């Protein structure tokens, strides 16, 4: 850095030792600071917004390909596609808006090290998840009951720890979803009527459901264009690997409150999702 040498005492030092605050009115601090260019910043903003459009477009393109060609894309396509675009956007923000490109390299290494730690964190968690199936058979003989001997619902050791933030629910062994379904909801009176009235039709339940549930608007074929071409939705695709939602009541879900339900659900299972516009 070039230093202003008007003060002859400081020809060897970079600062003025006689000034306790080191203010030198001729000292130009700009040598160390990069001032960004306005047009560069606007360009980067435009690129970022364009990438946002690309991300959303990629998602809609995937949906369109699945609906119109009947190809069921593997799950990783979605993750890899949107994540790579997100990484590019993050790099652009980091390099240009946060000025990592123009800074000391140390700042970049700090963040790269952090990302390395994140990669370790997620990497080992994923490796563990992947290989759980391998561990259980190996250890089957050695598994012993663990724990502290105190049940989850036991009273806390000290009454000061008995703070209850969330409602304590005893679902009686059901899942939270089953429990919510059985207990209804203030906004869905149709559900309670269905539960309480054995004569009520399942169609009424589903009309209540579709009245309030977010439908798959991405997949709507309103003018039946694809249907007219012979591409019925989801028909030709094997659902063996699918991660798309399946509609209809799980057989046996209500059979403990409605024993007759177990019979009718089995018969309707084959046509569960194809006559409701999906």
């Amino acid at each position, binding site marked *: 850095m070039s230093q202003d040498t008007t003060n002859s005492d400081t020809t060897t030092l970079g600062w003025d030792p006689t000034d306790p605050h080191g203010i030198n009115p001729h000292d130009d601090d700009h040598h160390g600071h990069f001032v960004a260019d306005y047009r560069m*910043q606007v360009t980067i903003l435009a690129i970022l917004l364009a990438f946002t459009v690309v991300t959303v477009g990629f998602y809609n393109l995937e949906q369109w390909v699945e609906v119109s060609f009947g190809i069921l894309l593997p799950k990783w396509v979605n993750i890899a596609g949107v994540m790579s675009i997100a990484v590019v956007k993050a790099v652009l923000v980091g390099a240009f*808006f946060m000025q990592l490109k123009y800074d000391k390299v140390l700042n970049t290494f700090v963040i790269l090290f952090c990302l390395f730690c994140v990669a370790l964190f*997620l990497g080992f968690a994923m490796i563990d998840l992947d290989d759980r199936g391998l561990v259980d058979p190996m250890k089957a003989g050695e598994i012993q009951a663990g724990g502290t001997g105190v049940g989850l619902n036991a009273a806390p050791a000290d009454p000061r720890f008995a703070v209850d933030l969330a409602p304590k629910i005893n679902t009686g062994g059901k899942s939270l979803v089953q429990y*919510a379904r059985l207990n209804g909801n203030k*906004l869905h009176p149709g559900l309670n009527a269905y539960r309480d009235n054995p004569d009520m039709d399942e169609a009424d339940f589903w009309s209540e459901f579709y009245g309030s549930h977010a439908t798959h608007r991405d997949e709507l074929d309103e003018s039946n264009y694809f249907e007219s071409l012979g591409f019925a939705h989801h028909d030709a695709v094997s659902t063996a690997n699918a991660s798309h939602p399946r509609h209809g009541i799980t057989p046996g879900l209500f059979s403990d409150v409605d024993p007759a339900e177990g019979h009718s659900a089995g018969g309707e299972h084959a046509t569960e999702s194809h006559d409701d516009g999906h």
Partner: protein
Amino acid sequence: MTMMTDTDTTNIPARILQSPKHWRNRPFAHHWRTGDEEFDAAKLGMWLFLSTEILLFAGIFCGYAIFRLLYPEAWANGSHYLDWRFGAANTAVLLVSSWTAANSVRLAQLDKQFWFKINIVITIICAALFLFIKLKFEYLAKLPAGKAPGTFFSYPFAHDPHEPLWWSLYYIGTGLHAFHVIVGAILFAVVLWRAFRYQSYGPTQYTLVENSALYWHIVDVIWIFLFPLLYLIH
């Protein structure tokens, strides 16, 4: 380089110009050799803090990844409850605010006080808009329907028994992010107040502006990752 000393100060009232908190009167601390070194050290400290913020959200992303791999049905269902258009709107709002934050740093460096304050104001307005969209159109549309985190979950029409997990991760991820947006907005509000009251920020003293902008960019980057992971699963 004459940007600093030749700025026209005739229009600045004496009360501000002579205040010890005016940027021209604010020296760097005596234990630093130059103001540059002080600034660089503060910036490095901020980057170290931002690393911890990234690690904070990495925990949430790890939980997301594990449960997405274990329960892909619940994740696909959950993503379908969300409207990607609100997410995209929030993304655009945050990107624009990121730009105005970066621009405000540039303007402080050039001692363009009026436009500097305007950009800070726009950044804060974008933060408020982000929070408004999130609260009004997303949270307040979902919570009364029973789509709530943890044991507060009471939505009766869920398909998959693991959907409450999705909702917990959604609320924790976006809620923690919204908290960070609030913190960033408060930082910028402090900058704005000091800029109006003391004109504290200028070419040689803009550390808080720079660090607030860095914090804001990290908040933006985290949303850039949250948006596709939450809204764009099919």
